[in-house]
């Protein structure tokens, strides 16, 4: 099975509301990154966490290595937040990074 399970695969939010994306890991990971794919197809780094939580504006992420999950919370969603979000888990061995399948977020007016 997949080592990184990302959910939901798709999400629709009305402007001003919020929700959470989640990645579960089948094994212990040493860190996680969250990315957003922009309109040009580039992966924009949102967060890198080796533990705990980080917050940046309307985004907040948490990573629990022991419980094997990470979350990305979006609050007060704006139209420009629409896009595809990926989590990428850093394997404990070497520098291998494993991607989730992505969440397609659609923010509605």
């Amino acid at each position: 099975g997949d080592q990184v399970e990302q959910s939901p695969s798709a999400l629709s939010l009305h402007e001003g509301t919020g929700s959470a994306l989640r990645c579960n890991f089948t094994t212990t990971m040493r860190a996680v990154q969250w990315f957003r794919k922009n309109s040009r197809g580039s992966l924009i780094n949102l967060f890198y966490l080796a533990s705990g939580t980080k917050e940046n504006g309307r985004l907040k992420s948490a990573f629990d290595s022991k419980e094997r999950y990470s979350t990305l919370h979006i609050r007060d969603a704006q139209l420009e937040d629409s896009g595809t979000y990926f989590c990428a888990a850093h394997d404990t061995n070497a520098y291998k990074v494993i991607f989730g399948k992505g969440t397609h977020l659609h923010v509605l007016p």
Partner: protein
Amino acid sequence: GALVYQYPRRTICKSGTSMRMECQAVGFQATSVAWYRQSPQKTFELIALSTVNSAIKYEQNFTQEKFPISHPNLSFSSMTVLNAYLEDRGLYLCGATGGSDYTFGSGTRLLVI
């Protein structure tokens, strides 16, 4: 800040021919470079991980004979897709790290005709 330039952004090659893509790390030392492929409707699959002064490690279903990689220094890496066929089409992505977080290039979209 850390940047990774990847080129070309997109390329078209005839079936059976080869194409090479390159990545340049700027602002940090790329100790490790990982190459991924995102096939249509799929996530990013790791092709191989290259760490300077170590052997390049290929994932299952990917081989050096098909995807030779060069990582000659701490700022540059290239990968070639040899004998490209339809199933090789997709977005190829390089990511580089100096030890903690990865920075990714913008990808090379490969079309095979």
